[in-house]
């Protein structure tokens, strides 16, 4: 049973003199603190830490953890985030002492096993991308974008070309223009067509010798595969520009098609989304990038190289000749890369293709179940996710996308992404992922159909079963309270 008192802060539970541990008396002579640390570095008063017992602390955090909604406790169709279940086997393997405890300064000769796996990971990611050179360095997808754009920038500089513009469709992830701006490019946003795809005339009107890179997510944020991607790539290549594929939605096309095959010159992976790993809370993530051969020399260092010798293969770290440098300390977020590695090895090529087929099937199944109440304005079929609209529900009942999202929590479902992307009114973006059963999708659909028939006033006030119902978002944004302070001060 849930403890509804669980949200009291440790400071509020504190009582003077409580301890979780008592230390034995020291058997060495006491030295006054100010003889050990210069007075100017000492605080006048000890910090006001909460005084609590061990059971206080344990109950506090265990009870808080029961308030979490996570992919381990609930169906989590949060569109754009790919909240698939993470197999626990891979967590365990990545934590094996020989892997998890390996020191980053271990000599190459003593880390051959790890280097062999990372080399293998480079090879696998190159094959899935259809692009030959891979750097595992970037610490997250967005850093992968930045690193790849710096690679593009170094490439053009090397060729003596002054290309200043990065183009992207209006449906792009916000990280695309952010990365481009950080890499020193001017950002040009292109209007899309009414069916959610790239407008070729609009694209053409912006292509010239200033064009550096066109960034595109394929399938896009609406869950639609861009059928003109080949033509788009040709148009970019004709003016000497590069095509960047944002790999955020690779979960939909693994083993079916490859960015390198449809004209992409560079891409990033989100290892945690596509190949599983912990989500959220700021990482750690991993955002490997894959590029065409003519860009390989500029990749971030180090990379793993394999040399065949008489006594078998030897692996070593190398630095590409014209590298943009390091983008992360040591070898990147190896723990996350390992989870991806084990995931790929567990599934194999056929299993990986099945992941995408199942993800696309699940999304289309859920889309069809909901079509009568939450129609999808763009596209007949979707890929791994779809963006439905609660516009007609709202018109008939007053129940908005936000109301539906909040009420779902009472039924034990995490909400879909709402009000994104902006091109769909009352947007509800759903991504069931491949790890959900048909029974779960049926149950979710039944609940949606039930909620739209409920008393709208009751739904406006949902959720009714959570410790906090609807936070005041305006106050939270305008006057955030970021830390606890004693009431007396």
């Amino acid at each position, binding site marked *: 049973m849930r403890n509804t008192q669980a949200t009291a802060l440790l400071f509020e539970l504190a009582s003077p003199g409580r301890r979780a541990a008592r230390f034995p008396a020291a058997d060495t002579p006491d030295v006054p603190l100010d003889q050990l640390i210069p007075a100017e570095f000492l605080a006048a008063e000890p910090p006001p830490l909460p005084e609590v017992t061990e059971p206080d602390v344990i109950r506090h955090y265990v009870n808080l953890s029961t308030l979490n909604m996570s992919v381990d406790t609930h169906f989590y169709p949060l569109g754009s985030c790919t909240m698939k279940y993470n197999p626990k086997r891979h967590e365990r393997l990545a934590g094996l002492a020989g892997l998890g405890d390996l020191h980053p300064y271990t000599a190459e000769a003593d880390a051959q096993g790890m280097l062999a796996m990372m080399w293998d990971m480079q090879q696998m990611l190159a094959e899935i991308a259809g692009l030959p050179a891979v750097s595992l360095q970037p610490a997250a997808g967005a850093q992968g974008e930045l690193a790849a754009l710096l690679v593009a920038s170094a490439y053009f500089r090397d060729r003596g070309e002054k290309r200043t513009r990065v183009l992207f469709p209006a449906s792009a992830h916000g990280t695309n223009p952010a990365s481009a701006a950080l890499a020193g490019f001017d950002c040009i946003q292109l209007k899309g067509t009414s069916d959610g795809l790239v407008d070729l005339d609009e694209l053409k009107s912006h292509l010239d010798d200033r064009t550096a890179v066109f960034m595109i997510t394929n399938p896009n944020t609406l869950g639609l595969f861009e059928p003109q991607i080949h033509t788009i790539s040709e148009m970019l290549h004709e003016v000497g520009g590069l095509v960047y594929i944002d790999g955020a939605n690779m979960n939909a096309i693994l083993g079916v098609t490859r960015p390198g095959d449809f004209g992409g010159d560079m891409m990033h992976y989100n290892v945690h989304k596509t190949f599983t790993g912990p989500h959220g809370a700021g990482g750690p993530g991993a955002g490997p990038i894959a590029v065409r051969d003519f860009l390989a020399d500029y990749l971030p260092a180090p990379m793993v190289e394999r040399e065949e010798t008489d006594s078998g293969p030897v692996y070593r770290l190398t630095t590409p000749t014209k590298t943009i440098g390091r983008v992360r300390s040591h070898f990147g977020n190896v723990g996350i890369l390992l989870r991806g590695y084990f995931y790929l090895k567990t599934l194999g090529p056929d299993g990986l293709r099945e992941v995408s087929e199942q993800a696309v099937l699940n999304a289309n199944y859920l889309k069809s179940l909901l079509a009568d109440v939450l129609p999808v304005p763009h596209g007949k079929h979707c890929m791994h996710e779809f963006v439905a609209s609660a*516009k007609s529900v709202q018109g008939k009942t007053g129940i908005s996308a936000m109301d539906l999202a909040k009420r779902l929590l009472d039924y034990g479902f995490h909400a879909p992404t709402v*009000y994104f992307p*902006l091109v769909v*009114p009352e947007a509800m973006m759903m991504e069931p992922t491949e790890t959900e059963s048909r029974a779960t999708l049926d149950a979710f659909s039944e609940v949606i159909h039930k909620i739209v028939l409920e008393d709208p006033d009751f739904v406006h006030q949902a959720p009714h079963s959570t410790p906090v119902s609807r936070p005041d*978002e*305006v106050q939270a*944004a*305008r006057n955030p309270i970021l830390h606890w302070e004693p009431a007396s001060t």
Partner: protein
Amino acid sequence: MDPASLKYAPSHEWIHVDGDIATIGISEFAVHQLTDLVFIELPEVGRTLEPGDDFGVVESVKAVSDLYAPVAGEVTEVNSSLEDNLDPLTDDPFGAGWIIKLKVTDASGLDQLMDQAAYQAHCAAEEH
């Protein structure tokens, strides 16, 4: 300001021109679409704008939107009270919620703007 006397941009800014001074805000429809407003970023007085330049940002709990200049001009005044209190923009977007004033340097952009009837049709189309 009488909404019927204003000109509108497709990106939901309204403009009222009096002599060479233009007052610019965003429409009631835009405010309604954005829902609860949280922040506004205003330009500095003296900045020169070309038609289509972004001159600020309005952020709601739902979305962040750029504000675009419908005509060319130099910013002469900004409604800086909005930075502390966005209620006038929510309650009276065509009046107390005005955002900037421009000294118009080129009024040619005005011809491409919509009157109220055309703008209402534009909003109705956008809702579907």
